[in-house]
């Protein structure tokens, strides 16, 4: 379900909506399959149906995401600097050159999409290009290229595919397991499949966070400048967080009365996040810089 790979998902409003959408979408799959199942379809048909849904997602997601972001592909004449930067990074990362897109928005962000190295698209927003130094931008783009190299879109789509399969299996097993004594198995089946789905959903998010670390590391390896990426992360997260905070100032004063303390809240936040906390990413990049400074 996580088909777009954004680097800097600290826009919590957007992130929550995305998360909810992903969860509901998955639930829809499971519900749909369940309905098919009760209608008497065989397991094979259901696997085919889920597979079909996933495949269409894999093939359409890049176009959909580009459109959703209001991004358009740019030619080397339109964005010579960005193209030249990507060309050099591709030589360094040993990748074929992806398509290059730009989204005309002030929010600094970047993402990579595409099911394979050859069909990949790397997109940067105008806000990102404006607010970062060249070396920082290079780090962010290298991070996106690392996602392409690690085939993250493909991996995450398959991971969600198996999450759906797992939920389906739970339904299947319970139907046959409880079928003998004609107990009201329906509700149990429903609950268990939801549970299985919810757990696999959390695991998928964990996988996604792990792959962010991988991409950070990949970026540091390609550019040789982990600190430049770290500084880009600081700038970008600051820029994204500052905007919503102004609106929430009134609510912010109520913070002391919240039932969940900040630390626990951030723990929950971590569990439900597609991206690791910024501090952790920066700490790991700092480790890489230390290694580098010690000498190869």
């Amino acid at each position: 379900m996580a088909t777009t790979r954004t680097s800097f998902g600290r826009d919590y409003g957007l992130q929550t909506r995305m998360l909810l959408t992903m969860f509901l979408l998955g639930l829809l799959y499971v519900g749909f399959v369940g309905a098919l199942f009760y209608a008497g379809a065989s397991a094979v048909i259901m696997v085919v149906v889920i597979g079909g849904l996933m495949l269409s997602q894999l093939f359409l997601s890049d176009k959909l995401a580009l459109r959703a972001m209001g991004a358009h592909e740019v030619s080397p004449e339109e964005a010579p600097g960005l193209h030249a930067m990507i060309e050099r990074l591709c030589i360094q990362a040993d990748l074929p050159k992806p398509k290059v897109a730009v989204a005309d928005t002030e929010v600094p962000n970047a993402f990579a999409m595409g099911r394979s190295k050859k069909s990949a698209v790397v997109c940067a927003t105008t806000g990102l290009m404006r607010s970062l130094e060249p070396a920082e931008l290079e780090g962010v783009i290298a991070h996106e290229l690392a996602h392409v190299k690690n085939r993250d879109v493909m991996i995450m789509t398959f991971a969600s595919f198996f999450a759906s399969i797992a939920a389906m299996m739970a339904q299947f097993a319970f139907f046959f397991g409880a079928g003998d004594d004609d107990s009201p198995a329906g509700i149990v089946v429903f609950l268990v499949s939801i549970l299985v789905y919810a757990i696999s959903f959390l695991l998928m998010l964990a996988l996604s966070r792990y792959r962010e670390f991988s991409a950070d590391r990949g970026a540091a390896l390609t550019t040789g400048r982990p600190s430049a990426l770290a500084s880009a992360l600081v700038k970008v997260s600051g820029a994204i967080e500052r905007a919503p905070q102004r609106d929430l100032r009134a609510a912010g004063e109520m913070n002391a009365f919240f039932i969940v303390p900040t630390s626990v809240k951030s723990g929950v936040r971590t569990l439900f996040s597609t991206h690791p906390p910024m501090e952790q990413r920066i700490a790991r990049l700092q480790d890489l810089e230390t290694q580098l400074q010690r000498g190869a």
Partner: protein
Amino acid sequence: MGFLDALLGGGRKLKAPAPDRLFAMTTAQVTLELQLGLTHRSRAGIVFQPLATADFEAILKETNELLHGSASDTGTTVESADDEFGYRWIVLDDPDFEDLVVAINTISSQLQAGGYGDRLLAAVFAFEKDGKGIYFIYNFKRGSYYPFVPVGDQRRDTEHELRLIAQIGAELPIESELERRLPLWKIPL
């Protein structure tokens, strides 16, 4: 990169520099000059990402001393400059083409021996025909050459490049994938 690497997040290591196929240019240059009428500009360059670490700077310094040491025999002049993309060029000037290839190899071997082979972007050899600049770019990671013929800003003469590949392909390890024959704009040669 294998399936398992992709599954495990890969990206741990960059592809190691390919075994040295750089020297193929020494013989290819003779063919380029005698049969195709391309004269070399007595210039070649190597471009890499400079690291801001003491170890890397020590290796660069050592390399520079090595180059200047041999310069008294070969007459190769050495300049270095950073470009607008943050990459460093070491530009070599020598009318003897073979000396250029040897000097490029000295630099790349030094960096590779120090564990910084990953930082190498490319080596570039400059030629010309009828006043038009023609470059041969060597990709260290893939151990392959490809011609690059820029015309004006952000445009390249692909037809000319393909023709050159057909003409010299037997003598040089040519980059086989079209999408990896990436341009290098503003070559200072």
